[in-house]
C-alpha cells in the first residue's frame, strides 16, 4: 500500500500485498500442489493480492502454461481450504499462472524465467517486485540463488522502488555445519533482509495467539516466571507414520524434522521476554536470546536428559499398523528416531530451575500439539483432603486440533461441605470466532509479500538451534539406541520418555 494514496486513509485495516511476480521453484512438487497454489488462490479471492499479481511455476518437468494450470486446478479443487472451488474464481486466478521449464543449475532456464518476468512486469505492472519461493530440497538453495543472481534477477536490498525476497523451506540444513554452509550460499547473493525462512507453525493462528496471550493480557505476565511455574511441557504428537516419506525421514528423524524448528519455535515464544515492539527484529531479538540461554547438554548427561524411540507394530482404533522398519525406503535395521523427548533448562532470571520438557513422535495415540504450563502447587492445603486431590493449576495452549486455551482451576463443589474439584475454563477458537482461520501458508506468503519477517526465522535463530541440537545428534549417532523399535504404534512413546520426567517427580500429560 502506498501511504501517500489519499483513498487509502481509513481503509488500512486490511493487509494488501503490492503487485508482485511470485516464482515457485519446485512447481511440480507436492508442496506446491497441496499448499502453495491453494494458499495463493485464497489470497487472490480474498483480494489480498494486488490486481496484476502473477505466479510463475519453475521446474524441470516439461509443461505448457495450460498444462500447469490444469494440474494446479485439479490440486486446488482437492486441497483448497474452502470448497467447492468456484470455477469462475479459478478462471480469474489461473489467467495469472505461468510456467517456465528449467533445471535448477541450467542458465538457459533462468534466462527464460527472466524474459517471462520482464513480460509480466510490462503487462501486469509488477514493477520488478519478485518473491522467489524455493519449495525444493535444501541442496538446491545455493545453486538456485546463484543462478538468480547470474541472471540479474536479484535486486538491490536497499532499492525502495522494487523488492526481491526469497522464501526458503525447512529443513534448513541437517546440522550446524550444513546449515552454516547453506546460510553462506544464500548470503553470497542475498542480504539477510531478503531471506524468509519459513516455518509454517508460525503461521498458525494458535501459535500467534501465544504472543497475544502473553503480551496482550496484564494478568498472566506477572505469573510467567520461575516463582510461579513448576515446569512446562511442549508436545507435538502425530498419529500418522511417515506417509511414504521414508527416504527423507531416514536422513532426518524426529529431532531434525520437528524439534529443531517447530518445537523450538514454540519454546521461544513461551519463554521469550516481552519485545519492545511487535516488529520483526524486536521479536526475533528476544526469541534468539532464549536459545542463547539454553543450558548446553553435557555429553555425559545426554542419555539422562533425552529419550528417543522408534515405532514398532501396533494398533490404533483397532487397525493394525506396521513398524517403521517395514515402511517403504526405510532400512530394515534403521536407527532413525521417530520419537524424541528432552528436558531443556534455560539459564536466565525468568526460567532458572524451571524445566521445559519437549516431546514429539510419530504413530502416537493421537494428533495433538500443545503447550502446557504447570503452575506450582499451593503452599498450604487450606481445605483439607479434597484440596489435596486437586491438581496444581495448569494452563494449556492447544495449537492443534481444536485450537484454544484451557485453564484448570480448583473450585468448590456445590453443597454444604467444602469440597474442591478441578474445573476447566475453556476458550475455543472455533466456537468463539465461528469462522475458519486462514491457512498458515496464506498468512506467511502474505507477510513475505508485505516485507514483514516477524514470523520467519532469522539466521541467528537457526544457527543457535542447530548449535544446541547438533551435539545431541552426534552423541546419538555415536551411541545408537539399543532395542529399536522401542514403542508400539498407537502408544505415547517409549518407556524412556516416561523415565525422563519421572526422574524429576513429574509425569507427562495425556492430552
Amino acid at each position: 500500500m502506498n501511504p501517500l494514496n489519499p483513498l487509502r486513509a481509513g481503509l488500512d485495516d486490511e493487509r494488501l500485498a503490492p503487485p508482485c511476480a511470485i516464482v515457485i521453484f519446485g512447481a511440480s512438487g507436492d508442496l506446491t500442489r497441496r499448499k502453495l497454489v491453494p494458499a495463493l488462490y485464497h489470497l487472490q479471492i480474498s483480494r489480498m493480492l494486488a490486481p496484476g499479481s502473477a505466479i510463475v511455476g519453475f521446474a524441470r518437468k516439461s509443461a505448457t502454461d495450460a498444462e500447469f494450470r490444469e494440474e494446479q486446478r485439479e490440486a486446488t479443487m482437492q486441497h483448497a481450504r474452502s470448497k467447492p472451488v468456484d470455477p469462475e474464481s479459478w478462471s480469474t486466478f489461473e489467467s495469472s499462472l505461468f510456467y517456465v521449464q528449467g533445471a535448477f543449475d541450467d542458465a538457459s532456464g533462468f534466462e527464460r524465467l527472466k524474459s517471462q518476468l520482464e513480460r509480466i512486469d510490462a503487462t501486469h505492472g509488477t514493477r520488478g517486485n519478485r518473491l522467489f519461493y524455493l519449495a525444493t530440497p535444501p541442496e538446491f538453495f545455493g545453486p538456485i540463488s546463484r543462478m538468480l543472481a547470474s541472471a540479474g534477477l536479484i535486486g538491490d536490498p536497499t532499492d525502495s522502488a522494487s523488492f526481491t525476497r526469497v522464501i526458503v523451506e525447512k529443513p534448513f540444513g541437517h546440522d550446524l555445519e550444513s546449515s552454516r554452509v547453506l546460510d553462506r550460499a544464500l548470503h553470497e547473493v542475498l542480504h539477510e533482509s531478503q531471506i524468509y525462512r519459513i516455518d509454517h507453525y508460525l503461521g498458525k493462528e494458535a501459535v500467534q495467539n501465544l504472543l497475544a496471550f502473553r503480551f496482550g493480557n496484564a494478568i498472566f505476565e506477572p505469573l510467567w516466571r520461575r516463582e510461579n511455574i513448576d515446569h512446562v511441557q511442549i508436545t507435538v504428537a502425530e498419529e500418522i507414520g511417515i506417509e511414504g516419506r521414508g527416504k527423507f525421514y531416514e536422513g532426518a528423524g524426529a529431532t531434525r524434522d520437528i524439534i529443531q524448528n517447530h518445537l523450538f519455535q514454540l519454546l521461544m515464544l513461551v519463554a521469550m521476554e516481552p519485545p519492545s515492539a511487535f516488529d520483526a527484529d524486536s521479536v526475533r531479538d528476544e526469541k534468539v536470546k532464549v536459545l542463547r540461554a539454553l543450558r548446553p547438554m553435557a555429553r555425559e548427561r545426554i542419555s539422562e536428559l533425552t529419550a528417543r524411540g522408534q515405532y514398532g507394530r501396533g494398533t490404533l482404533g483397532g487397525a493394525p499398523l506396521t513398524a517403521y522398519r517395514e515402511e517403504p525406503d526405510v532400512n530394515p535395521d534403521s536407527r532413525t528416531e521417530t520419537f524424541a523427548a528432552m528436558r531443556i533448562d534455560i539459564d536466565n532470571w525468568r526460567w532458572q530451575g524451571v524445566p521445559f520438557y519437549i516431546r514429539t513422535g510419530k504413530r502416537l495415540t493421537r494428533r495433538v500439539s500443545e503447550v502446557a504450563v504447570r503452575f506450582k502447587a499451593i503452599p498450604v492445603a487450606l481445605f483439607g483432603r479434597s484440596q489435596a486431590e486437586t491438581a496444581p493449576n495448569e494452563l494449556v495452549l492447544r495449537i492443534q486440533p481444536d485450537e484454544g486455551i484451557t485453564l484448570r482451576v480448583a473450585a468448590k463443589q456445590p453443597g454444604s461441605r467444602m469440597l474442591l474439584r478441578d474445573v476447566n475454563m475453556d476458550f475455543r477458537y472455533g466456537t468463539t470466532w465461528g469462522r475458519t482461520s486462514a491457512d498458515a501458508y496464506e498468512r506467511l506468503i502474505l507477510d513475505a509479500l508485505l516485507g514483514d519477517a516477524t514470523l520467519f526465522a532469522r539466521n541467528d535463530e537457526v544457527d543457535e538451534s542447530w548449535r544446541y541440537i547438533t551435539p545431541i545428534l552426534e552423541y546419538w549417532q555415536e551411541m545408537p539406541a539399543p532395542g529399536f523399535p522401542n514403542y508400539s504404534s498407537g502408544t505415547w512413546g517409549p518407556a524412556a520418555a516416561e523415565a525422563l520426567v519421572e526422574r524429576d517427580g513429574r509425569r507427562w500429560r495425556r492430552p
Partner: protein
Amino acid sequence: MTAVSIAPSSSEVTAENAERALDRAWMALGDPPRARTLNLVCVCQSDDEVQFAIEATREVIPGHPGRVIVVRLGSPIGDSPVIVRASLLDDASNPGTFVGESLILSVTGTARDHVATVVERLLAPGVPLVLWWLGDVPDDPSSFVRLADRSDVLCVDSSQIDLSDLVTLQRFVAQRARVTQSISDLEWLRLRAWQESLARFFDDPASLAGLGRCDALEVAFNTPARGDFASAKAALFAGWFATRLKLRTPSSVRWATRENGRALWLTREDGQPFSLTMTHDLRPNLHPGALTRVTVSSSVGDRFEIERELDPRVLAWRGYCAGAIIPECVLRIGSPDTPRMLRRLLDRPERDELFLEALTISAPWVLGARAL
C-alpha cells in the same frame, strides 16, 4: 438457532408483563445463568423486515448473548394495545443452551408516537443498546431520534432507505450524536470492496500522480424505482471520494441535468473545478441503487474505471495513465450477507468516521437536488 416459546398459552403478553414472562421462562428451565451482553433493538416497517430481522439476529446472538427486541411499526391509524411475543433463544449449534431472549412487538396507531418509551421499558438493564433501524425513517423522525439518542450503537442500512433519509441521519449525527456513540451503515460495509478496488489504482506512484490530474468522477448506479438523482449508496460513495480528495461543495448546490443523470461542479483543493456526475443505469439483475460503474478521469486522458460485469460479483478493473502499467483484470467481490455484517459490527462497534464524513458532505447534495 431456534426460538423456544415459553408456553403456547402465555407467549403473548402485554408490554408490562413481558419481563415477568421472560423470568417465568428462565425459571421453567431451572434458572440457568443468563448471559446478557446487549440489547439489540430492530425497528422494522414491514412483515418482511420483521422476518428478516428475526433470522439475522438469531444468527448473531449466540456470539453476543442478550435481549433481542423486534419492533414492527404498523399503521398509524387505529389503536390497539401493544402485544409482545416473548420467548427464549437457544443456540442451534449447542441445543439446550439458551443464549438470549426475544421480544417481538407490533406498535400501531397513537402508540407509534410513544414507541421509544415502549422499547425503553423493555430493555434489559445494565447492558448497551444496539439499535438496528431497518428501512426508511418515518416522515416524523422523532421516534428514530429518541431511540437513536438512547443507543450506544446505531446501525442503519442505506441500501434500504430513502435518499432523503441521508439528510435525517446527517442531522442526527450533527446535532445529537455523542462522540462515544458508534454509528455504522451496513451498506457502507458492502461498499468497502468498491473503495478498496478504486484505492488500489493509486498505490502505484505513477497512477497516484495521475489522480492529481483528475477532474471528474462519474458514479453509475442501477436506477432506483422512484427515480432519485442518486441512490444513497452512490451518494455515499461519491461523498467518500470527495472527502478523501478534499473536494469542496459550492455553497449553493446546483445539479445540472445530463442525458442519463445529473452533474455537479465541485472544487479541488487547488481551486480547479471537479465534475461529479451521477448516471442512471438499468441493470434488472441488481438491487435498486446498486453501483454499476465508477470512473475517475482527467481531461488529459487519465482514466481509472471499475465496472460491474454481467455477473454482479465481478468487477472489471481497468485504466490508462501515462507512465503507469495498469493490467486489465477482473476482481471478484464477495457479497457479505447481513448477519455477517451485523456480527462484524457487534464484534467491533466503531464510530465510522469515513462514513460520517461521507454522510456530511453528501447530505447537502441531496438537499440541493430537492430544490430542482
